[in-house]
């Protein structure tokens, strides 16, 4: 009963935070509320027994996206104030939103009794889990049973990174300067914190990638932490990303997509179905693909953050 009360409070806070994040005209306040919303959403996911999703939501949804939104809010403050749309439009849109919400709620109430009894795909995944090479079902689904989807997601991330670089006209990462262009000088405290935390974040990210084989974790969660480590290294203010050169970056960012490409060509040439893991090597190959994916996810997230920084 206590858990039910907690869940109810959590759900009502989520709705209230979502409403208030959209309410304020002050962009900074809206972004902070959005970050709080992301953290509560991560709590909600862990209450639903989905720790992998909770990890990804906390790291990417609240963390990296929050940082990107803060940058965008700072840049947009100098833009012109927009007018509110007319009352008629607002009424129509809120009516449409209410209809959609009501429809979804009715559909959920309709299928809820059946879905509470069915096990979903858990049984089918459990049957094939022994051949999957890992013991965590979520990782097995992402990296083995639906690996084609993961490959395409990595491609989407690559496209996002390239568009961001083109949009910000920052093909040269070495033009990044200090991260605090508006303040009076360098931030030694922030630099010291980033010096301490970057290796911790790198180690935690690597640990999450390897732990994905037997527990919650995996390529996306570990990659999100590696992206956070990249953001931290940018906040040191020296304008360098892990002290690496730009050429190295763009090549590590494609590592995930290329690894999947090599793997698919390999399985095709050997005579198996494309992307089908050979039974003995499934665990090792899956781990290799996960490492490549995590590296490219981390680099992509760091570059997405870096490209938004003002240069010079």
């Amino acid at each position, binding site marked *: 009963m206590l858990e039910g009360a907690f869940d109810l409070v959590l759900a009502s806070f989520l709705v209230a935070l979502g409403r208030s994040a959209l309410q304020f005209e002050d962009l900074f306040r809206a972004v902070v509320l959005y970050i709080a919303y992301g953290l509560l959403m991560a709590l909600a996911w862990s209450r639903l027994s989905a720790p992998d999703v909770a990890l990804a939501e906390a790291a990417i949804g609240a963390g990296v996206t929050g940082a990107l939104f803060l940058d965008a809010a700072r840049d947009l403050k100098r833009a012109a104030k927009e007018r509110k749309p007319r009352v008629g439009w607002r009424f129509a849109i809120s009516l449409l939103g209410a209809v959609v919400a009501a429809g979804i709620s009715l559909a959920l109430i309709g299928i809820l009794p059946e879905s509470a009894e069915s096990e979903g795909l858990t049984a089918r995944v459990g049957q094939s889990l022994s051949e999957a090479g890992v013991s965590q079902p979520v990782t097995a689904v992402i990296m083995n049973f639906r690996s084609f989807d993961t490959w395409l997601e990595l491609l989407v991330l690559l496209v996002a990174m390239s568009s961001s670089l083109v949009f910000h006209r920052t093909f040269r990462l070495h033009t990044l300067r200090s991260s605090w262009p508006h*303040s009076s000088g360098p931030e030694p405290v922030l630099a010291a914190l980033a010096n301490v935390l970057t290796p911790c974040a790198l180690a935690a990210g690597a640990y999450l990638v390897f732990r994905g084989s037997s527990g919650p974790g995996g390529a996306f969660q570990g990659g999100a932490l590696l992206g956070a480590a990249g953001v931290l290294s940018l906040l040191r203010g020296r304008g360098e990303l892990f002290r690496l050169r730009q050429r190295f970056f763009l090549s590590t960012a494609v590592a995930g997509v290329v690894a999947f490409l090599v793997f698919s060509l390999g399985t095709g040439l050997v005579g198996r179905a494309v992307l089908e893991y050979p039974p003995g090597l499934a665990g090792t190959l899956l781990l290799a693909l996960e490492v490549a994916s995590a590296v490219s996810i981390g680099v992509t997230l760091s570059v997405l953050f870096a490209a938004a920084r003002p240069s010079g």
Partner: protein
Amino acid sequence: MSAVLLGIGASFFFAGTVGVLRFPDTLCRLHALTKADNLGLGFVVAGLVLRADAPGTAELFLIWTLSLLASGTSCYLIARRTLEERTDARRSL
């Protein structure tokens, strides 16, 4: 005993939140936020340590240390930025 510590931690958090909402000034709010919330977190961690096993205790201490580092640094940065904005505002008068 654990419940007592958790309750004390919760009351510190509550007091800190009241301070954030009611204090007039950014710098005062920072006092309430960092001091009360860090004390609250310390009590909550102490209460949870009494219930946890050895790896859990290590994880809790790690969380506590990282949280202290992060909140201390962000408090300093917010305070510095507020001072800069005030000095700029005074100079432009």
